[in-house]
């Protein structure tokens, strides 16, 4: 019998052959890898194995996973996790977004989908209680995210109504999709949902684009999967929500007030490609967003009472009609301060544009900001852009983001993401790679989220990114001794939201996990065994790398050079990340996880974590 919380079936879709089959995973695999991020890594290994370094993520052979987890839909804060070999880091990332797609697919009777191959023309996958089918997406290809959602919603609802007209009104399906950036294989493009929610890190939008896969849509009429201890689960559900409802500040403001405070208070907000991290621009305060633009203050996704999301809308002027969320802090920073922009209206426009184009609103804009710094330093010229780019100028960034999504002019190079763009521009300009990489704010190819480490006053510290198997991902940072904050490995594998995890007693969360699955799971077992197993497997992938790059152990387990420059302004002026501390903590982190001094998992560790299948590949790296 399938463990609780799982529908018990996954779909394997071969896009080349238009073949769809159902697969199952053993109870042991589920207990060891849970779902989402963990299970996707295991399935990737089983499909690719030791040939991993040879696999080009954008080759049709490359698997792309869309997985829920056993807690998805049931635990508050439902999300979907996408994964596969990342076209940016060449490791794997569990990249999640909130969307009703996640509960709909489980209600249709499936826990996830693995895509391989490449469709000969654009398609989308429709998943219902009657199975799954590939449908023509020619008419959707080229459309921005917003139009894609509007058209697909109408089309699928009409189709389902046609198939079963007598059951009453059909509620809308859930969906994930890509915009033009994904279609054109912008390497760090996102998979998008609900207009402004994104699986941003990892570049999985380009993976979908490489497969001619425009969207995945689900509508199920079944119940959420049965659980091991339903009465306990119902009680825990109510109690968890009570904790979330008690988080009044988070519910009231979301992260929409942080665009001011992370700069003004903790000096850790990217400004002009991280040349500064402090500002005191009160024009950029939360109330200036809220009072003029928030049209919905309590906006939540399925089974969520944190409702950190708010909807912003521009009602007048040249950007009239732009809809996005607050924007949330990350996009207030990356589509605002990092461009030298401190105007809420311009920030909302550029965030909505990133969403519509299908950029990851963190990663794409990081690359755009990087390009403008190269212009500031005289490395890129007006002629590379076709105009004169300027910090603080919304039109500059509007144009660069479009050029990237459409791969026009310098956009063709920037579409490779910050790290690869740096190497290409070095080659193009006849410069040494170091001269370009010193301005590139990424770790392992993944552009860093909008929380700096130099002030040491935010939640991100010395090795947060340097040691992380997901590089610059601010949602899943490495912490000394692999403790509390490693919770993201759990939430990405159980697949629910970080913001319905922090603020709830961890004992309650793990009691809930046990009531759902029936696995003998505890906080301790997760921290000592399951979590380390998943992270170790991800580390192995990351260090195997290939085919176009290989990360150098320890040397590349580091912060970007900019994080070692002293902060030039603000209350933390002069502070910087301590390299000695990074080196010491990195070794301690490796040791805690049972990796050798170069960060390669030892034979004993692999054996202890039941990862013996990695031994041959790891022995080559040792």
């Amino acid at each position: 019998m399938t463990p609780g919380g799982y529908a018990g079936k996954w779909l394997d879709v071969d896009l080349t052959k238009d073949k769809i089959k159902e697969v199952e995973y053993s109870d042991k695999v589920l207990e060891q890898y849970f779902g989402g991020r963990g299970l996707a890594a295991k399935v990737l290994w089983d499909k690719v194995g030791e040939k991993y370094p040879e696999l080009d993520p954008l080759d049709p052979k490359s698997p792309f996973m869309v997985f829920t987890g056993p807690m998805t839909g049931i635990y508050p804060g439902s999300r979907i996790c996408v994964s596969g070999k990342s076209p940016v880091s060449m490791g794997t990332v569990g990249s999640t977004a909130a969307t009703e797609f996640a509960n709909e697919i489980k209600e249709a009777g499936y826990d996830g989908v693995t895509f391989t191959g490449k469709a000969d023309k654009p398609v989308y996958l429709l998943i219902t209680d009657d199975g799954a089918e590939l449908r023509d997406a020619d008419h959707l290809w080229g459309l921005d995210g917003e139009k894609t959602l509007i058209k697909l919603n109408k089309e699928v609802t009409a189709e389902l109504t046609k198939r079963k007209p007598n059951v009453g009104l059909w509620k809308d399906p859930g969906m994930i999709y890509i915009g033009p950036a994904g279609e054109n294989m912008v390497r760090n493009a996102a998979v998008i949902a609900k207009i402004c929610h994104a699986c941003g890190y990892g570049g999985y939008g380009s993976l979908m684009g490489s497969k001619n896969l425009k969207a995945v849509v689900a509508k199920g009429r079944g119940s959420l999967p049965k659980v091991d201890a339903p009465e306990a689960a119902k009680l825990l559900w109510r109690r968890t929500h009570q904790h979330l409802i008690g988080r009044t500040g988070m519910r009231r403001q979301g992260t929409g007030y942080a665009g001011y405070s992370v700069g003004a208070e903790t000096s850790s907000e990217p400004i002009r490609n991280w040349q500064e991290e402090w500002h005191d621009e009160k024009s950029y305060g939360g109330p200036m967003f809220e009072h003029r633009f928030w049209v919905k203050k309590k906006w939540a996704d399925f089974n969520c009472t944190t409702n950190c999301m708010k909807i912003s809308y521009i009602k007048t002027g040249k950007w009239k009609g732009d809809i996005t969320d607050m924007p949330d802090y990350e996009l207030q920073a990356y589509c605002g301060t990092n461009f030298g922009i401190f105007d809420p209206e311009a920030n909302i426009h550029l965030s909505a544009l990133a969403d519509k184009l299908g950029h990851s609103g963190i990663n794409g804009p990081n690359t755009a900001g990087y390009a403008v710094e190269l212009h500031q330093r005289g490395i890129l010229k007006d002629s590379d852009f076709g105009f004169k780019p300027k910090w603080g100028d919304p039109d500059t960034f509007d144009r660069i983001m479009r050029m990237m999504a459409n791969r026009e002019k310098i956009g063709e190079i920037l579409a490779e993401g910050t790290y690869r763009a740096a190497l290409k521009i070095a080659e193009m300009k006849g410069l040494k790679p170091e001269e370009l990489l010193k301005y590139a704010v990424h770790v392992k190819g993944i552009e860093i989220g909008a929380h700096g480490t130099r002030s040491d006053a935010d939640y991100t510290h010395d090795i947060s990114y340097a040691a992380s198997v997901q590089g610059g991902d601010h949602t899943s940072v490495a912490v000394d001794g692999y403790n509390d904050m490693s919770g993201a490995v759990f939430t990405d594998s159980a697949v629910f939201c970080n913001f319905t995890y922090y603020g709830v007693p961890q004992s309650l969360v793990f009691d809930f996990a046990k009531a759902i699955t029936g696995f003998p799971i505890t906080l301790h077992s997760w921290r000592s065994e399951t979590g380390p197993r998943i992270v170790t497997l991800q580390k192995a992938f990351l260090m195997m790398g290939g085919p176009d790059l290989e990360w150098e152990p320890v040397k590349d387990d580091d912060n970007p050079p900019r994080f070692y420059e002293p902060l030039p302004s603000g209350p933390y002026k002069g502070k910087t990340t301590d390299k000695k501390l990074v080196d010491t903590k990195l070794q301690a982190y490796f040791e805690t996880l049972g990796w050798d001094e170069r960060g390669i998992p030892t034979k004993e560790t692999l054996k202890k974590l039941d990862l013996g299948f990695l031994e041959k590949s790891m022995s080559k790296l040792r």
Partner: protein
Amino acid sequence: MVKPIWIARDPSACSGCRRCELACSMHHEGWMWPEASRIRVFMPFPGLEVPHLCTQCMDYPCVKACPVDALSTDSIYGAVIVDREKCTGCGDCIKACPGSVPFLHPGDNKATICDLCGGEPECVEVCTEAGYDALTIVNEGPNINRKLYSRDPIDVARDLAVKMFGEKGEEVIE
């Protein structure tokens, strides 16, 4: 004692969390089953979340339309009660309802309608608990206006779209 109540709904206050659907289905089905919930939140465009449920029209067109007398009204609260033995799943009640509120249950294919949980609706309780107040119990006696709430949820969403997004609201639902 006759004590008719009904559930007023305010789509502009609905967060779209769908806890109402979860609470309803846990009460009626024993587990989380959003598609079997008597209250259904439609979302034809993100941000436009419309709670959709029976409003207990004074003239009960659904009850009148049932060809097999499977529908009746609760003598205390005025809810529509479905006799699942008698119901044939013909769908006539859906057609008779001005808002197409009833639906056929995804499990047994019988008409499914809000029964007001015996006077203490679970959906309202969780909505109130979270401070959304998109659902409110109204205790005053029935009046003719109530029926006007029974509208196609997509039409409601179209109105809400214009209220939120102005002219752009005309474009977000095709």
